[in-house]
């Protein structure tokens, strides 16, 4: 299994400077969260890793691969799965077809590959909706589908961008349980979140972002004792 090392990354959208020297490390099997309010650079950090945004300087290494030089599809085939916060499901394909589009072989041969049936086991709601068009799902169902579709590509590291944002509390609980199951299965997770409570449930360590910079990093336990950091940078 492979280790992700993001080092001193500066990313721009056009001329606007978004990330100012972000550095992150994730070891295999670890679950790490990026915490911070809206617009601090969490999404851009994930997009820089998957290659949808380009780091102008700095490096993103996954094992021996230099991700800054690769396209998103090449990065995905190295075993990194990306779940965007906009839940981009394909609206005129059915739930099953959405899942099938994501299917590709994984690199870790010791792990059992995902199948559509396996996804239905994790997200029973999706099985009932199997033949419904993606465009007609509720927010929570869309989120399950987006995660399921990325899992179909058998990633070793999952980039999860605010999966429970805007969902009803009962749906949030369900989804958090399911993400926890994924973590327990040994999947590495990099999880962008605003809410420290959700982050605590599935993360071992946290990076706190503000203004495109890492302001704090430590274990979740340590963060809980740092009320100064929480007050300054997080939504409580």
């Amino acid at each position, binding site marked *: 299994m492979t280790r992700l090392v993001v080092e001193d990354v500066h990313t721009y959208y056009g001329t606007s400077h978004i990330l100012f020297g972000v550095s992150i490390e994730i070891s295999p099997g670890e679950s790490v969260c990026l915490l911070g309010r809206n617009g601090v650079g969490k999404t851009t950090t994930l997009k820089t890793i*998957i290659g949808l945004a380009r780091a102008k300087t700095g490096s993103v290494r996954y094992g021996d691969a230099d991700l800054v030089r690769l396209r998103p599809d090449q990065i995905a085939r190295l075993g990194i799965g990306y779940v965007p916060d906009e839940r981009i499901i394909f609206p005129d*394909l059915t739930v099953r077809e959405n899942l099938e*589009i994501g299917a590709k072989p994984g690199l870790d041969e010791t792990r059992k590959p995902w199948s559509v049936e396996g996804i239905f086991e994790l997200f029973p709601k999706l099985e009932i909706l199997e033949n419904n068009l993606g465009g007609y799902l509720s927010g929570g169902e869309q989120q399950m589908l987006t995660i399921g579709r990325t899992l179909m*590509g058998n990633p070793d590291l999952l980039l999860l961008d605010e999966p429970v944002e805007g969902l009803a509390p009962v749906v949030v609980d369900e989804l958090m349980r399911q993400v926890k199951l994924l973590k327990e299965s040994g999947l590495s997770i990099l999880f962008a979140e605003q809410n420290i409570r959700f982050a605590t449930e599935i993360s071992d360590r946290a990076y706190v972002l503000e203004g495109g910079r890492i302001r704090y990093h430590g274990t979740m336990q340590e963060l809980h004792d740092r009320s100064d950091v929480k007050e300054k940078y997080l939504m409580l």
Partner: protein
Amino acid sequence: MVYDLTSLLIQLLSGLSRAMMLFLLASGLSLIFGVMNILNFAHATLWMLAGYLTYTLFQFFTATMGESGWWLLPSTFLATAALFALGCLIEFVLIRRMYDRELPEQLLLTFALILIIGDVIKMIWGVDNLRIYMPIEPMEFFDSFVNPYSFVVIGVGVAVAAGLWWFLHHTRYGKTIRAAVHSREMVSALGIRIGAMYTAVFGLGVAVAAMSAGVFLPIVPIGLGIDMDLIVQCFAVVVIGGFGSILGTFVASIIVGVVYSFSVLIWPDGALAIIFVILVAVLIWRPWGLFGTELRS
């Protein structure tokens, strides 16, 4: 003039074969626009090039291996394959650089292609109109005589429409293409080589047009300038049907083909004008076309 049932039927037949030609051309145009947001102004010019190529191959086969209308089959097939390759090459070398550019720049590039290909054709084939004469006996049809080849043409059109629809809805590759219409970034992040897919879709769109050029050679003589007439009607078809919708393109082709064909009978000078009246009406009533989606995301 008396319009009896027979002449109306014959006109309908001619309208339907015209509709099929428009469909084969416009479906490629619509597919390419729907998937990669490129308006290929040179689409009909590539169609025209395929026609000349088919003509030359046909002449070669008949000259070396004896006269037979069946040579149209391998000639069309080879010209289609050649245009698929040329389409892929054009995407790879030129179109690929235009994805993030504005529409006027795309039009400028594809308009340059029209001029270049037109001049190449002039150098190789000259300026005379060319056509293939098929040794087919007219067929009796409701007390009148029609060219049975019209039925072949209509059959090919319907078959390609059905094939294209099946490909887009029932193959994994087709579904991936439809997914990419919605989000290129997401498809790419799922590990799919979007660049290779765009090249293939562009080649496919050009190939479908190329095939229609061959199929129509026995009933539509080919000559310089025909591409401009056709591209304008193609745009009308695609706008009426809705960009990116195969079904919409099919229905709009039939509307435009049949209306044109009957207008020619009744008011020859105004035939094209009537198409544009329909176009304007659709634009006012449903700007996204009969089968298009209201908003692109």
